[in-house]
């Protein structure tokens, strides 16, 4: 079976600084992957490469076996939805109007929304529990509501792969639990998910695998259990050795949370 997305020796650098070196990885249908790593290691860059909005300097990224270079962005957006971290909207768009933008890749230049588009938008709102927010102004939503609405826009693209950039950042603990519930339920629907995180809690019960980016090293892949090891995390996040027991507590605490 062809994977949904494949990184084939993908490298990316900003000017002379190599950020991602020869990434080799695949995402299959329904897989749920957490992308871990410290700030500035290239998590967002990796997601942008996966969404086709950035082009790798060498190697390629393939969607169903086809290089993203050769696909139109509008075609890519029908299979891959990127949910960016911060969104600023200068006008008072309602939640519904905001989510409607997810249909952009399916619309012609002159046509409005058709019945099928409206149905998909309805479904996206139901899955993310945003129906009751539909008439609210996007800019006036709370952080958790905003995040769900952005995911609804992504779902309106009818993607096979959902890329989430820091979906739980700035959320309080209750909204974090809700977000993990949402990620699990989308994953059960068969949508593949790649979510960047730099928080270690709740990874285990939600994600099927973990990609760990360590500065200057090749990306590691494995199950949450294999990857959430104090030695690996200490290196990746450059934790001072004297905090090893605290780090272990964090991981243990995380396991207890899952139980």
């Amino acid at each position: 079976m062809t994977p949904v997305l494949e990184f084939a020796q993908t490298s990316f650098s900003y000017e002379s600084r190599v950020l991602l070196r020869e990434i080799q990885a695949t995402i299959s249908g329904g897989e749920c992957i957490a992308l871990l790593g410290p700030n500035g290691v290239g998590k967002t860059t990796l997601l942008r490469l996966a969404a086709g909005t950035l082009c790798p300097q060498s190697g390629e990224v393939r969607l169903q076996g086809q290089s993203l270079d050769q696909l139109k962005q509008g075609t890519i957006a029908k299979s891959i939805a990127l949910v960016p971290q911060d969104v600023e909207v200068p006008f008072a768009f309602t939640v519904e109007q905001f989510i409607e933008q997810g249909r952009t890749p399916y619309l012609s230049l002159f046509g409005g929304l058709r019945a099928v588009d409206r149905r998909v938008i309805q479904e996206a709102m139901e899955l993310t529990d945003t129906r009751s927010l539909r008439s609210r102004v996007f800019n006036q939503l709370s952080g958790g509501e905003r995040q769900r609405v952005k995911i609804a826009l992504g779902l309106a693209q009818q993607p096979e792969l959902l890329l989430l950039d820091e979906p739980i950042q700035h959320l309080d603990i209750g909204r974090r639990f809700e977000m993990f519930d949402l990620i699990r339920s989308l994953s059960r629907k068969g949508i593949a998910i790649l979510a960047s995180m730099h928080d270690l809690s709740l990874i285990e019960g939600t994600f099927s695998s973990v990609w760990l980016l360590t500065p200057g090293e090749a990306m590691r892949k494995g199950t949450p259990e294999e990857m959430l090891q104090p030695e690996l995390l200490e290196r990746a996040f450059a934790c001072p050795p004297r905090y090893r027991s605290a780090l272990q507590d964090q991981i243990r605490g995380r396991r207890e949370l899952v139980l």
Partner: protein
Amino acid sequence: MAQAVEQVDVAGVSDAELRRISCQRMLLAILVAALLVAIVVSLAVGAVAVPARKLALMLLSGHSLTPDQRIIIITIRLPRVLSAALVGSALSVSGLLFQGLFRNPLADPYVIGSSGGAVLGASVGVFLLPSVSIAGFGATALLAFVGAIGSIMLVYALAHVNGRTPVVTLLLAGFAVSTMLSYSSYFLEVWDQDFGTSLRVLASWLHGTISQPTWGQLAIVSAMLVLGLAGSVPLAGRLNTLSLGEEYATHLGVNVQQTRVALIVIGSLLTAAAVALGGLISFVGLIVPHTMRMVLGPDHTRLLPVTALAGALFLLLADTAARTLIAPAELSVGVLTAFIGGPFFLYLLRNTKRELIL
């Protein structure tokens, strides 16, 4: 939750959506009716009053006017009335496009300096190429277009930082460019060949005056407006997507660079159309789209037709007021819009502290 779950019919069109659609239709109908009434009233009032009722009868049933009245209405007032409506419509739609382009509700052809560029272009036409003439415009309309495009590209390059156009940089860049361009028009006095006539033309331009255009001039500007409006239709949907930001729009398959170029070209075409007839008329492109946005929300596909109509209505009323308030003398309509628009602009500025929630 106090909010009840809204009813959704088979096609998935929600109540809120239906309400918005009917609201837009109603507004369109009201604006068309108001514009027609305003045209008749504006034709009737002036130094020589022709009763509006009689005028309406003439239009409806061919009821004849005296030759004097005919000259006043058809030859003198009608071109001016049409001119005001065209200029208002062009300014408002270009304001709407520029606000979408800059993702900033304070953008207006006057504020961001594109009008200034158009004036400079137009005065080059008046002073340096007075003998070149196309349908009574000289090279004016064309050069105004070139000036508008040039200045907006300059302001855009100066004000656009990391995919955003912050209010402060936009206003400062627009102010500086606009001032330089408008005043550099005065340099051209040196080449003034007809002892002050061109200078007077320039002065009235800088004040923003709707004067007596020829039918040829009206035809050209109407063509520019129609072209600009037609070009705006496919861009309106793109503007909605662009509102979410560059990254989102790119990801969703919008060619951001191409869309921007199209917006600049069409916005400048409309600015040039307005400047060619009316000179520097400030704030219309700000007041009209914003008022429509307050009524209909920010969806550009809905805003485009109502903005075009409301702009025509607004400037027609303003110009009628400008030529009747202190009759038999006349105010420049630009003076009037500045007095209405200035406070409006300041109000917007006060209310957009949190990086613009409108």
